[in-house]
């Protein structure tokens, strides 16, 4: 069953069309890698899924429920969008950790704020917070950061920061986890740590969309690959097939640039 269905998404910035007729599906437990050259619209696509941009056309469905329909304003109400965002988790290219909170606080903050909306919050405040903290520590542990829970972002290396960002996104148990070039702001040496974490998430059948420039990684970890260029999907298919035997000339050209180095 498809967790996510994206149908005919289109997005303009002023006069420039950045996304054009984007459609794809994502199965539960699968990892989708999006590749493509700079400016091809990968980030914009992720941002549309997370309601950071509003598509001009198209629909977004999660578990067959219409989350967004460009033709139906009732799906775009500010108040509902906030909740709908929780279907998606987002790990930004530049981490965007909250600098004034420790690693643990970064991970737990949103859960704590959401808990306040629970009807039983007042009575069980202490228990709820204790549970949130326990979950947070467990998540950090899974990321190999058990001993860094009390550190502030600036006291962590780039790779550690990115792993905190992943834990933060996972804390809200999203249906689909999105990564925007999760290692591109990292030193090559630190890249490995983060990729290892994503790999293990894939092994645990986390549903993911990963925008990445690491071709080898995309090939090995992703189930599906989408190659975008100029705002359109040029090619999509099983990972090995797209990366090792691309059907399109444009895909071949793009991949050739990586072969050089």
């Amino acid at each position: 069953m498809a967790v996510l269905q994206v149908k005919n998404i289109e997005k303009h910035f002023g006069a420039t069309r950045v996304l054009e007729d984007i459609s794809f599906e994502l199965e539960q437990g699968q990892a989708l890698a999006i590749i493509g050259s700079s400016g091809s619209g990968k980030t914009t696509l992720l941002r549309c899924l997370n309601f950071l941009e509003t598509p001009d056309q198209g629909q977004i469905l999660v578990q067959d429920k219409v989350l967004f329909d460009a033709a139906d304003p009732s799906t775009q109400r500010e108040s509902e969008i906030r909740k709908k965002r929780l279907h998606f988790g987002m790990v930004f290219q530049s981490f965007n950790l909250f600098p004034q909170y420790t690693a643990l606080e970064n991970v737990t903050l949103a859960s704590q704020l959401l808990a306040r909306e629970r009807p039983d919050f007042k009575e069980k405040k202490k228990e709820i917070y204790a549970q949130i903290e326990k979950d947070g520590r467990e998540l950090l542990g899974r990321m190999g950061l058990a001993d860094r829970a009390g550190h502030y972002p600036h006291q962590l290396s780039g790779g550690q920061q990115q792993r905190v960002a992943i834990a933060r996104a996972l804390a809200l148990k999203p249906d689909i986890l999105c990564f925007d070039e999760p290692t591109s702001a990292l030193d090559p040496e630190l890249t490995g740590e983060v990729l290892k974490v994503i790999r293990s998430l894939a092994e645990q059948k986390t549903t993911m969309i990963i925008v990445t420039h690491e071709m080898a990684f995309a090939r090995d970890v992703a189930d599906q690959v989408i190659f975008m260029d100029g705002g359109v999907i040029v090619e999509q298919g099983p990972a090995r097939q797209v990366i090792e035997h691309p059907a399109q000339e444009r895909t071949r050209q793009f991949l050739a640039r990586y072969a050089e180095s």
Partner: protein
Amino acid sequence: MSFQTVNVMLGKSFLLNCQIFFVTLLLALPLGLIVSFGSISRWKPLSGVSRLYVYLMRSTPLMLQLAIVYYLPGFLNPGHMLPRMTAACLAFVLNYAAYFSEIFRGGIQGVPRGQQEAGQVLGMTKGQIFYHVTLLQVIKRIVPPMGNEIITLIKDTSLANFIMVKEVIAMAKEFGNKAMIWPLFYAGVFFLVFNGLVTFLLSRTEKKLDYFR
């Protein structure tokens, strides 16, 4: 007249400086925040008016603004004017709100957009994002420029003597009529002490906010 007496008299009039200082801080900070929201608003008329206000306030001498706030109402409608200290405080609040708003604007615009977006994708409300994510980062950013402005403010309070508020420098000069000149040079000490204190508090605040970057 003894050193003691001069000190007491200067001290008493320095209280007026302090009063203007604190009233201005108390009122110009929130007003400045409102103006800064105005000037970053996407609604052109509002941002236009806010920016014009800031431009006028920052382009003309505070001394003149004092004179206008105090004398203009009485000039147009004799007898209907504000008490001196009220007028002085009003002029200072209006003037400093403009300066503060620019600092707030810089602080708000300085927080990377990604911080807000990170809050959004975590399902936070706008209010939660402002209060739990942005606010402290804005404060950290504005403390240093605000510190400079605050030091300028306490010095500027002396301008109130232009509308005959007998603040410390006016008082010090008054001693000249008693053929005592040194109080005028000595008045600077009050500012040095006050600023020493402010500088100390500011650097403590900055240190406190130093735990994150």
